[in-house]
């Protein structure tokens, strides 16, 4: 009897607290209540994406795996294969995955069955999860991005360490991914007691969820619609055209358009072709769809081509022109004569202008107007000659205009592009010993936007925005405002004061004059014949990038109206031929919409 008391003393008094805690834990369960994800609106308050609650069947693998009967019922009611079910549950046989969503968007009959038979199905519950619904279908898919179930790898990462659990929907790309923390809201939590077989007995505590905040974007969905339609239809048109002197049609596998508000660098529209419908990700993407999106034949519709690197061709001449002026290699009065061929590197290394017959005497304005390669070869060559050991001048100005580094736009997976220099070449070609040295020819190539240079359409838009804003460097952005449940503005985005690069106004004026002439009488003039350039003066620069083994890539960068610019448009088309013929018409059509010029 005394022994019993001693034992009780040890059990209850000495270690009572440990037992009490363990006992408490063995009784209490809690489950989270998902919060609806915030909506996404365009700049005019038009609803783009909303959250809709949807019943889903979720299971606790630890309980369900021990009950063959429940597994059988799940398989037959949800139409799953037993082996698939075991795979899915065993894969998540880790303590932090207490809940696995087996099937979303179940039909009403199934829902009723599971609700009525909940006592027979320990470890199985019907949960409301929130799925995305897209008001405008596939429009702006690359901007909005898609959501999907969080995977194990993400759950383990520090970014998702707090407030996430298995089965959660998270933003996986686009705005959904970048503004995940804004949109996700905070989950509620219900703590309840369970009996030994896991059946809830009573609720102890209930914390309500906080819905996610709403995102207002800089894009104008009507403009976006127009831009995507113009881009797609133009690409179809170009595909009908034949490459000169061959039987081949232009392939035009893809393209991108960026429309910026010229002053603030707000992204009014950003289109990438081909595109996809984000709603195929809702409720889990099918393996067929996933295979389609990742088949090289389909040119990877998930890629946002506006933030991928491409050889820029002549649109890069902005940088070469400014470098030449700033380093006093050329000035307004200096003329370089174009005879169609340039032998600055010696007679054994001739380089040609795109206009084989030559342009004649060119100064900075006419060189831009005609996109004269000879002029810019010479500028590049002379810049190379002025290089000293610590500084490569063309690269310096390329960096100044934002090339070679990400713009910082609020989109994931942005490509910084490539601005090749001595160091880069040494590293990149370290396998080919005789090609690790930076040659003058490399700078000369780069001067006309060729070589290993890669820039993204968005970088290009930002670079020209620096010209438009006379040296102010804005960051292009998509987020406009974060608003709360009641519509109150919680945060305004992109209002930082842009840094001033302190550029020379005169030089920029000269470049602008050249660009104006590109549209009025230069390389793009043919595309703006019917355009009221008197009322709305447009500046532009065409680009045609040659890629070995592929058709030419077409570029057109433009802004308008000159004097009080409102819009910057960048059009880039893969394997579409010259930019003046392929890309410029797209920009012209967008201007027609933007300035409401109608069909006349």
């Amino acid at each position, binding site marked *: 009897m005394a022994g019993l008391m001693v034992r009780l003393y040890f059990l*209850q008094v000495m270690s009572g607290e440990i*037992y009490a805690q363990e006992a408490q834990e063995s009784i209490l369960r809690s489950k989270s209540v998902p919060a609806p994800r915030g909506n996404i609106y365009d700049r005019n308050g038009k609803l783009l994406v909303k959250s809709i609650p949807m019943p889903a069947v979720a299971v606790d693998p630890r309980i369900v795996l021990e009950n063959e009967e429940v597994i059988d019922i799940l398989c037959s009611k949800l139409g799953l294969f037993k082996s698939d079910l075991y795979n899915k549950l065993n894969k998540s046989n880790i303590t932090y995955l207490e809940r696995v969503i087996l099937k979303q968007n179940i039909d009403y009959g199934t829902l009723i069955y599971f609700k009525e038979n909940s006592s027979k199905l320990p470890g199985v519950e019907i949960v409301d999860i929130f799925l995305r619904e897209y008001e405008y279908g596939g429009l702006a898919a690359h901007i909005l991005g898609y959501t999907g179930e969080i995977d194990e790898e993400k759950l383990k990462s520090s970014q998702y360490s707090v407030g996430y659990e298995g089965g959660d929907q998270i933003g996986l790309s686009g705005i959904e991914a970048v503004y995940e923390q804004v949109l996700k809201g905070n989950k509620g939590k219900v703590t309840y007691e369970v009996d030994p077989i896991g059946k809830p007995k009573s609720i102890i505590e209930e914390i309500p969820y906080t819905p996610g905040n709403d995102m207002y974007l800089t894009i104008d969905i009507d403009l976006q619609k127009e831009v995507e339609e113009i881009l797609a239809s133009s690409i179809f048109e170009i595909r009908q055209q034949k490459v000169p002197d061959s039987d081949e049609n232009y392939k035009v596998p893809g393209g991108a358009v960026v429309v910026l508000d010229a002053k603030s660098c707000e992204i009014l529209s950003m289109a990438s072709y081909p595109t996809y419908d984000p709603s195929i990700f809702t409720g889990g993407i099918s393996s067929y769809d996933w295979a389609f999106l990742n088949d090289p034949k389909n040119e990877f519709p998930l890629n946002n081509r506006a933030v991928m690197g491409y050889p820029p061709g002549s649109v890069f001449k902005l940088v070469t022109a400014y470098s030449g002026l700033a380093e006093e290699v050329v000035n307004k009065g200096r003329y370089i004569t174009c005879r169609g061929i340039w032998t600055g590197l010696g007679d054994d290394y001739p380089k040609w202008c795109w206009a084989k017959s030559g342009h004649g005497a060119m100064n900075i304005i006419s060189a831009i107007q005609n996109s004269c390669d000879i002029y810019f070869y010479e500028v590049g060559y002379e810049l190379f000659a002025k290089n000293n050991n610590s500084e490569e001048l063309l690269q310096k100005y390329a960096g100044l205009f934002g090339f070679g580094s990400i713009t910082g736009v609020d989109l994931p997976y942005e490509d910084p592009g490539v601005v090749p220099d001595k160091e880069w070449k040494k590293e990149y070609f370290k396998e080919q010993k005789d090609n690790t040295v930076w040659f003058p020819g490399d700078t000369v190539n780069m001067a006309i936007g060729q070589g290993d240079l890669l820039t993204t359409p968005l970088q290009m838009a930002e670079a020209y925005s620096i010209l438009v804003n006379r040296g102010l460097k804005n960051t292009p952005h998509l987020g406009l405002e974060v608003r709360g449940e009641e519509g109150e503005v919680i945060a305004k985005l992109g209002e930082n004061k842009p840094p001033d690069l302190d550029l020379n106004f005169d030089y920029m004026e000269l470049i602008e004059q050249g660009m104006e002439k590109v549209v009025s009488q230069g390389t793009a003039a043919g595309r703006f014949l019917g355009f009221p350039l008197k009322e709305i003066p447009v500046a532009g620069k065409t680009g045609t990038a040659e890629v070995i083994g592929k058709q030419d890539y077409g570029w057109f960068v433009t802004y308008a109206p000159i004097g009080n610019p409102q819009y910057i448009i960048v059009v880039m088309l893969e394997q579409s031929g010259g930019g003046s013929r392929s890309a410029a018409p797209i920009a012209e059509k967008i201007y027609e919409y933007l300035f409401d010029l109608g069909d006349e």
Partner: protein
Amino acid sequence: MQDSAKKSYLNGKNIILEDEGKKSRFNFDLILPIAVFLLAGFGVLIIYSATKYSMPDGVADPMYYFKRQGYWLIGAIVVFVLLQFINYRALARFWWVFLSFSIIMLIAVLIFGYEVNNSRSWLDLKFFNAQPSELAKILMVMVIATILSKWPREKVERVGFKKVAFSLLAASATIILVLLEPDYGTALIFFMTYMGMLFISGANLLYFFGILAVTVGGFFAAIQSGLIKQYQLDRILVFLKPDIERQGIGYNLFQSKLAVGSGGLWGKGLFLGKQTNMSYVPEHHTDFIFSVIGEEIGFFGAVLVIIVIAVIIWRCFYVAANAGNSFGKLIAGGIGFIILTQSVINIGMTIGIMPVIGIPLPFLSYGGSNLLAIFLGVALVENVYMRRELRTNYEIAYDDFD
């Protein structure tokens, strides 16, 4: 009255001749019934707490077990009081009735009984279900007490070979029948009670140790020969390694320890024991009732309960020591041993220091048969105490010649 009084030659105590003194004095022992009633009353409350959320299938009344146990308690108290009007000595001559009744019951249960927890130990008596071994336990105490004190009569040696042999035979018969059910726990209680009675009977201790040695030897032989399987042994010895088998056989034990341990110093409050109320502890209203006590009223309450049980046991042995005759002494001692062994093993099992064998906690576990049986037992003890000064001529003869 005066002339009927006589001083015992042997110990100088006042004695009353039975023939003349039908008037058994009103010298009750108050401590024993008070302790017993308090404990059993408290037991009914605890059963309510343990079962208010877990009724049998088809019963909606949360007071179901509470009411049933309450009725049994009232019945048991009535039996307790009524039994005081009979002189326990009169029962001695019916020893063979008790023995045959026990044996018939235990055989009946083997044939007609139904199984609970793998042992066939329950009889369905239409109105209620009975566990014959509970009653047999008390009857065996009567039978053994009779054999060791009165039959067969011996003059010189008070407890000689014959008595030991006959008592062992009677005890073995019942123990073997209980083993056949099989109900090892109850059989163990039977055996220990018999050994206790033999120990205090005044028999030569060589008999005691001889039987003990043979039994223990037989037990190991049974393991060796495979009569007792390893898994049965594991089941019993799980308390030595409870953490390995939390979900297997150790589950009861683990949950019980968790419940008792979580009670802490003061407990979670009566009716508020979550582990036990929510059926985390299996058998929490019967064999594991002590886990409810430990969880709800904590260390102090549990110790208080143990103290009350100890008081009851002490009173039994006190009565045994003052019974005035060998028959009474053996009855009170036997009942004391039943309560002692059952309480220690039961409580020990709920707190993980004794093997998990299914035996009820006297006065506290739910169950009519065991409540009624143990009340019969303590009623006999009280009866022995009330009549401690009565002597038969036969006894006086023995006393005075001894």
